[in-house]
């Protein structure tokens, strides 16, 4: 009986803290959005984040895109070759990259690289009272610290996705055309005839939504590191919450990918 009571009380407590956490994160999202319109705009932080999220992610995106494109080129060639449809390779590679793999893999890479850093930075600022110091100086932490990150991600993640798509298509071209001997003309012709503006729009909307998810979840977990139930205290809480933030963001990206595809396709 006592075991059952304990189980029920723990379940209730977890449920309650999850609702509180969700509410807190919901308000955080609103504050983050409003912070973008509060003046004066913290331009130097915005540029620092553009450099960190955007420029800093170029190398990792390049290698991920090149290898993904080349694998798609090879796999696509072997699958299409069975039906004598190698000419469709360009179309298959481009559509897969533009609508699915480009936005998703870019978001996962940015979450792992920049999102984790964002979470750890804000977590450390929280436990070392730097965020409290901003509050005490009557400086809005959203306007000063968080909203520039959101704006930078909203601009740089779609650009990184476009970069991913271009490099991936080039990788598919190298694997399909140079290694497997597909006709270069048919590679580009197939791509041109099958990729529509709607496909590009779908990829862009996805990357925009993923950018918001990355900043919302990663910065939010860092910002609230001191009140997250079970996170513990000090440096350990920051490392625990950072891992949690990357996992949560990755899962959210995959779930939202399905939802957006189902709604927009």
């Amino acid at each position, binding site marked *: 009986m006592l075991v059952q009571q304990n189980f029920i*009380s723990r379940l209730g407590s977890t449920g309650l803290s999850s609702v509180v956490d969700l509410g807190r994160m919901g308000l955080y999202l609103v504050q983050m959005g409003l912070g973008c319109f509060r003046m004066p705009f913290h331009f130097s932080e915005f540029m620092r984040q553009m450099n960190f999220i955007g420029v800093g992610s170029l190398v990792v995106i390049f290698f991920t895109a090149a290898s993904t494109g080349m694998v798609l080129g090879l796999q696509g060639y072997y699958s299409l070759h069975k039906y004598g449809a190698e000419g469709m390779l360009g179309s298959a590679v481009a559509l897969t990259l533009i609508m699915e793999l480009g936005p998703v893999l870019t978001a996962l890479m940015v979450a792992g690289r920049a999102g984790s850093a964002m979470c750890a930075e804000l977590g450390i600022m929280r436990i070392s009272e730097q965020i*409290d110091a901003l509050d*005490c*100086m*009557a400086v809005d932490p959203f306007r000063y610290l968080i909203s520039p990150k959101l704006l930078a991600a909203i601009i740089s993640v779609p650009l990184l996705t476009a970069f991913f798509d271009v490099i991936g298509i080039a990788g598919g071209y190298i694997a399909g055309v140079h290694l497997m001997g597909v006709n270069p003309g048919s590679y580009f012709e197939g791509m041109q005839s099958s990729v529509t503006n709607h496909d590009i729009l779908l990829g862009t909307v996805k990357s925009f939504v993923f950018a918001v998810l990355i900043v919302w979840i990663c910065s939010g977990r860092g910002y609230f590191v001191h009140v997250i139930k079970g996170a513990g205290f000090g440096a350990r809480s920051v490392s625990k919450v950072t891992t949690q933030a990357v996992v949560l963001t990755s899962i959210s990206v995959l779930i939202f990918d399905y939802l957006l595809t189902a709604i927009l396709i």
Partner: protein
Amino acid sequence: MNTTGIEFKDVEKTFLREDGSRQVILDRVSFTITAGKTTVIAGGSGQGKSVTLKLILGLMRPDGGKILVAGDDVTGVRGKKLKELRTRFGVLFQGSALFDSMTVFDNVALPLRERTTKSESEIKKQVLASLDQLELLGHENKYPAQLSGGMKKRAGLARALQLQPEIMLFDEPTTGLDPVMTQEIYHLFARTQEQVGYTAIIVSHDIPKVFNLADQVIIINNGIMDVFPSPEAIQWSRKPHIREFVKTTMGEIYQSHLVEQ
């Protein structure tokens, strides 16, 4: 003359522990902090000293009661009013809370850049003058990680004083400092208070040294606050926990009085 005092009226604050039980931090406490004077808040770890500061600053909300600053009820204020309230305060945090990615100069200049319309040349002049006063000139281009504990405290104090606060809150200001540096920091507090005329609230473990600065002492224990009009008045208390506090923290100094009692 500074007229900004603080009043707590039946303030309650309770925390929920991880196991679901409740911990009473402040149990309907009432006290007044006199304007222009120095009040020291002392007590054991986890007794609610820092929570008291956070309640004053609006970083936490009380579960009940009222907090008045200069006669204005500031309990639960939000938005613009909270911002206005905070501009009246200066805070020196336990770990100084300097921004790691900024130089000493930028840290000290931050409140001026964010909260005033001063030009960059005016800001530079004011910041360098403050750094000179706090013996930090020549270190303005260093990052917090390159400073000693005492220098960090001085940089934090310089930043807190930039907007000429009416009330200064010091949270464990001498933690981690050696006795010489501790003494130096206390001299700085006394000097800057004389110049700016702020109401000072010092939360500290550093008993009895910090009592040299105190006009009034508040001791927190198990959610109850005992207010003493002077450090000397503590020794006459008949409450067992206060007598224990005097014995363990002030030792020899007041031992004779305790024996007499």
